[in-house]
């Protein structure tokens, strides 16, 4: 069976020119991820869990190694793929869920959530209906749907963010502490959605402050240590 992701000897450090120094993040990360698998990244604070997620997403440029991502058209190395290919994959197949919503002024919550569907070519009214369904699912109050999330509280913004990030089924989901600042209802909705996506074959890599939230979903764990990654630990 062809995996979704094969990470080989991935390394990342930051070159800080003004300080004239290198900031080490991680070296020689190796792991494989299958469709429908849920991988938990573990390790002490500051060890580079979020950095690894961002490197996989290419918000950070890797320094060495390969991130082989298998598409229907063959495999592509996300470490060196062209920017436009990365942008394309982000639109279609690779999702990133953070705890922060980048809300734009004067765009209603339901429009923000519907946007990935609109970009995928769904007609406006259909996309809007679907967006409202997910806002309800995550427990965003109906009278907020047409409001601008810039004015929402952190918790409400996060719900909008999750609805948007998870509305379109992806092949690979990167989860950066999505449960932070969520109330119990929204957290339950999130876990339901993740379980459904996992059942549908979506591969996931996640960083969770309280891994207990997603205990039932985890297939494998990767332990990041200060210097390098340890062996995969089976659950």
């Amino acid at each position: 069976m062809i995996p979704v992701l094969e990470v080989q000897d991935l390394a990342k450090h930051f070159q800080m020119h003004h300080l004239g120094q290198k900031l080490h993040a991680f070296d020689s990360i190796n792991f494989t991820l299958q469709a429908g698998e849920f991988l938990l990244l573990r390790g002490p604070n500051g060890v580079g869990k979020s950095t690894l997620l961002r490197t996989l997403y290419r918000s950070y440029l890797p320094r060495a190694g390969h991130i082989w991502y298998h598409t229907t058209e063959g495999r592509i190395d996300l470490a060196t793929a062209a920017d436009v290919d990365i942008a394309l994959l982000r639109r279609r197949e690779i999702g990133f869920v953070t705890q922060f919503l980048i809300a734009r002024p004067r765009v209603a919550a339901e429009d923000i959530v519907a946007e990935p569907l609109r970009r995928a070519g769904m007609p406006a009214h259909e996309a809007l209906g679907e967006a409202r369904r997910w806002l309800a699912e995550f427990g965003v109050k109906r009278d907020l749907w047409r409001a601008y999330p810039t004015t929402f509280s952190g918790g409400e913004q996060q719900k909008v963010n999750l609805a948007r990030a998870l509305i379109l089924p992806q092949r690979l989901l990167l989860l950066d502490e999505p449960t932070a600042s969520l109330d119990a209802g929204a957290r339950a909705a999130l876990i339901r959605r993740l379980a459904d996506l996992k059942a549908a074959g979506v591969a996931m890599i996640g960083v969770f402050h309280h891994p207990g939230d997603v205990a039932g979903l985890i297939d494998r764990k990767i332990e990041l240590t200060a210097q390098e990654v340890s062996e995969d630990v089976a659950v």
Partner: protein
Amino acid sequence: MIATAPPLALQAPQLMTTPPLLTMTGVSRRYGDVVALRDVSATVYPGEVLGIVGESGSGKSTLLRMMNLEDMPDAGDYRLALPDLPGNLFDLDRFARRMLCATRIGIVYQNPHLGLLMKHTSSGNVAERLLIAGERSFAALRGRAREALDASEFPLDRMDARPLELSGGMQQRVQLAKAIALEPVLLLLDEPTTGLDVSVQALVLDTLKRLQRDRAMTIVIVSHDLGVIRTMADRVMVMRRGRVVEQGLADQIFQDPQHDYTQQLVHAKL
């Protein structure tokens, strides 16, 4: 300054099968002793927003003017994916250039005096574009000018006011309406919100963003303001002294800038 360790070299696009809309290769331009552009290349794919950042004198506006064929380079090749104009657009004669710019490319300047006939009405400014393209029906001119102004979120009760009587933000909306009236393949924005009040700037950016989303427009935006570029751009090109020092996905440029100069820019902003 220490040497930048070369990051992993990126490959040519494999998944993106649509050809680029805009391809510029090896563009150089000198003004006397001043080198404005040195061997600059750029690629923009359909529906993409390319941001160009850099300080004044970096060549970013010169590059944009070349994309609008307002200035010719000393060397270089410029192509748009237009079936009827397959060759190097720098080789077009003046007339063909003018028609191309008037009908296929829209531009919004920082200075509205460059883009607008200040003493004509706002709707007339939009109508002029349509007239150049051959529209000769008064009702159609009126209707299409109204549509374009409305899409730019310009208050229609003022559509027959002269830009001279309008605020800076409104003038930019008239420029935008004029730029999009003919549904150009490429929209060029040259510091479109510089000089506006911060609140007005946010509203104009919001309109731009909305238009881009609704019409899947291909946009090149030039700004020295990283906030503007961050709001608008999918990909970013960083220019300094006529060269491209770095380019990448917008989030990568802002979160993990590689070049010394880009790091200074980003850190100065954040």
